[in-house]
């Protein structure tokens, strides 16, 4: 098959954005047409990626749909390709993007055209991250996302948006420039930045530790891991709903993906060496940020801190390096992508009506917004990992993986499950049940049609993958086994070399 399907998927949103940016004419018509273009291009992309999933061959661990073109001659190739792991992230991205667009159209009040352009460009950049098989291309997409995200937070954000946008931008940039140094160093050590070639090459052991740390600095900020997470609550709180959704559902996953693809794949010795560090940071993240989440009086902040805790599970799963752990953390990332997106949308719904994110200004919503109360309940239960929702599958597998490696880690991580139940249920109780906090709540309208469609699709997926996660496992199974095999053989290679 010669059709460059990955490039198509990556760049369709960008083309949509270009279309929107060149439309001229009467304000109303332009607005309408740009909405249609945005919806059309993102949905078309979603269906294209579904098609990609069907034509994806899950029985091989090789990279598929490879595209390779000269980019900077004799130096960097524009190299795309996917395996099972990236396949699922592409699906997640193309699924979340239309949701953001619908939610944006529904709730953004000014500069809608620019907003749609920013979201579409963001989609292109995020898809590029998951498709690219060259470190420099990866970096380009990874970093490029800063620009639209900065604008999304800064232009359409809340009251403290400037502070949050700056913090987000500078934190991430600082982490990433160190990764850039590492990428360039890899080029001079190994002579290439091509991921496939690098996976076969063995980078000398003495370089691995520093390189690993440089990549870690970037991913740890992006993921975010404790203590590099401080930008996240601010960014989440101030970003518009669609921005928070993109941040939580996809941007954070880039880091998890990076850990899997690059940290494990390229630096096995260093990964092995630094595993205790990751475990300690993850445990702190799970317990500490869960406790912090418990004390929040701002709904968005609470969900943001819970994201940090959930990402702690992901890193434990990845660095447990067991099959269950890795598969669990992939599923955990996907389900967290869906659940956190859903939760932020839920907050967005009430925020659009009341213009307050404070938990104390709500209460008794069950009376006026029964449908809303129902979907919010499903998402709350999914977030705390109730069996039957996708949240359970991921967390359970991660814990199974962790038990095989280190029982203390597993036990401490399990505490996080309890804590998450505590803060999520308490949040639900305070917002939905109880007395009505003010007379305004009586006048609140229940969710409208667009919102129902958005939530219905999310509920469907969360429940579907909670009950029947088989399709996901089928896709990633071989790729994950291959990842672990490679890791083990590489590690043994270095260990025998060290012993000799």
């Amino acid at each position, binding site marked *: 098959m010669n059709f460059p399907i990955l490039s198509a998927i990556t760049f369709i949103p960008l083309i949509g954005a270009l279309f929107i940016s060149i439309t001229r004419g009467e304000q109303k018509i332009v607005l309408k047409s740009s909405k249609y273009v945005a919806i059309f291009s993102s949905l078309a992309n979603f269906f294209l990626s579904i098609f990609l999933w069907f034509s994806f061959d899950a029985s091989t661990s090789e990279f598929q749909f490879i595209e390779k073109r000269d980019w900077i001659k004799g130096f960097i190739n524009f190299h795309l390709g996917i395996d099972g792991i990236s396949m699922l992230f592409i699906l997640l991205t193309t699924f979340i993007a239309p949701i953001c667009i619908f939610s944006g159209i529904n709730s953004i009040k000014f500069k809608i055209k620019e907003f749609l352009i920013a979201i579409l460009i963001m989609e292109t950049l995020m898809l590029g991250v998951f498709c690219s098989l060259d470190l420099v291309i990866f970096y380009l997409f990874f970093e490029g996302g800063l620009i639209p995200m900065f604008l999304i937070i800064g232009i359409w954000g809340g009251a403290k948006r400037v502070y949050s*946008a700056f913090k987000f931008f500078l934190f991430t*940039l600082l982490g990433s420039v*160190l990764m850039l140094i590492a990428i360039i160093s890899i080029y001079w050590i190994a002579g290439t930045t091509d991921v496939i070639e690098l996976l076969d090459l063995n980078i000398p052991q003495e370089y691995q530790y520093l390189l690993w740390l440089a990549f870690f600095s970037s991913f740890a900020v992006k993921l975010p891991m404790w203590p590099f997470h401080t930008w996240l609550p601010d960014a989440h709180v101030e970003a518009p709903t669609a921005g928070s959704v993109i941040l939580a559902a996809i941007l954070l996953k880039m880091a998890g993906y990076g850990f899997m693809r690059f940290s494990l794949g390229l630096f096995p010795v260093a990964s092995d060496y630094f595993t205790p560090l990751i475990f300690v940071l993850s445990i702190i993240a799970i317990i500490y940020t869960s406790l912090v989440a418990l004390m929040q009086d701002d709904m968005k902040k609470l969900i943001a801190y819970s994201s940090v805790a959930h990402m702690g599970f992901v890193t434990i799963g990845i660095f447990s390096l067991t099959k269950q752990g890795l598969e669990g953390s992939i599923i955990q990332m996907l389900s967290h992508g869906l659940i956190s997106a859903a939760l932020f949308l839920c907050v967005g719904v009430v925020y659009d009506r009341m213009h307050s994110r404070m938990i104390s200004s709500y209460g008794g919503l069950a009376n006026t917004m029964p449908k809303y109360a129902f979907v919010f309940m499903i998402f709350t239960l999914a977030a705390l990992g109730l069996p039957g929702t996708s949240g359970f599958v991921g967390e359970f597998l991660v814990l199974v993986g962790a038990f095989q490696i280190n029982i203390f880690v597993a036990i401490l991580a399990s505490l996080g499950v309890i804590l998450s139940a505590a803060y999520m249920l308490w949040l639900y109780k305070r917002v939905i049940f109880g007395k009505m906090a003010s007379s305004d709540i009586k006048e609140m309208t229940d969710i409208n049609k667009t919102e129902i469609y958005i939530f219905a699709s999310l509920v469907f997926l969360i429940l579907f993958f909670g009950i029947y996660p088989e399709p996901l496992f089928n896709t990633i199974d071989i790729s994950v086994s291959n990842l672990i095999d490679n890791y083990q053989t590489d590690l043994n290679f270095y260990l025998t070399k060290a012993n000799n």
Partner: protein
Amino acid sequence: MQTIIYILPELFLSIVIMFLLMIGVFIKKSFKLVNLLTVLSLLFAIVLVLNQPDEIVKIFNESYIIDQLSIYMKVLTLLFCFFVLLSSKDYIQNNNIDKIEYPIIILASTLGMLIMISSNDLIIFYLGLELQSLCLYILASFKRNDERSTESGLKYFVLSALASGLLLYGCSFIYGFTGSTNFEIISANLNDANTGAVFGIVFIIVGLAFKVSAVPFHMWTPDVYEGSPTSVTSFFALVPKIAAISVFIRFMYVPFVNVINQWQTIIIFLSIASMILGAVAAIGQSNIKRLMAYSSIGHMGYALAGIATGTNSGIQSTIIYLTIYLVMNLGAFGCIFMMKRENIFYENINDLSGLSKNHPMLALSFLIILFSLAGIPPLAGFFAKFYIFMAVIEMKMYTLAIIGLVTTVVSAFYYLRVIKIIYFDKPKKPFEENYDWGLKISLIISSILILIYFIYPSILVDTISSILIY
């Protein structure tokens, strides 16, 4: 007679200068005509330079060299001189500095730069340098009724004369200890044991560092940038940098190539100091021209980092960096020229407040340019830095690389601050929109080049990869 062909561009420019002076004398109110002829003659000079033979030629007793480097740099000089004149015409006319001397002096300083770029001998080099500098002093104080402009001209003159003195002093050392003013002979006679000549090198580097405004010889830059008329500032920020960097490269890699151990540390220091100061000092600025001054100091720090590597790829990365820097600054000054309301040009950053509301397209190109200046991918500014750090890390100069990249983060802050003012703040009174077509064209060209550079980055690399110094 044979050699005349090789200096055709320089000859042509000298004749044009004299001819234009005549026009100015005999025709009254001839600024528009002279300006037009200047612009056209710059274009024609580019054609002449491009027509020069592809081989390396040394003429006038080997004191004048035409090679790939000089051709590339000359084209760059003439091209950006052309664009600067094109984009600043409106400003010149609105500020009553539309005297015929203005384009002529610019042309004369450009001639000086061409001579500097091609020089292969200390004396020729100094001639070119002085021709260039004298014209720049006049330009800085061109708005002679304005106190700040006069002040900046005087300041520039005093400090630059001092630097030239030091440079000349260094030249005399070099001549005394190597017995020649010719670059190749100097190179052959120089070695680490020749302490006297090494002294000379330090003085020459000080002089050159002044010209590229590298820290700690940068003091004049913010004041001169702020005080001079903006049209002159944009000229200062772009064109003399080309000649200065080009001469820097030639000095380090032709006469001083054998004593790289002696000068490398100095350049690394200059580079690190410029990057740090350029990033930190710009944070508190409220005048956009001052901000651009510090930003250009920082950028020169990155360009020097490429020179400090002592490799061919380092030089090439510096040249790529310089090229992209020029495009970005052309755009940035284009935006500054557009901050006009009722024939008054505004310079305060806060005047940009809410620009995105009133002028979406202008705000968008400013956004692209600022993100590119900050070095965020996938814009051109990122690639400029990328190549520099490729070269730096190749030589395992990790400290330089890490400091350089961390200062990018710091400097990103003040570019973001401008973007914040443009996009997040409340709109003010709109600016006028009757832009001059030349200004529009140069802004559009530069922002589009910055934006689409990532599609085919090889194009610049391929052109520059033919420039080999040694």
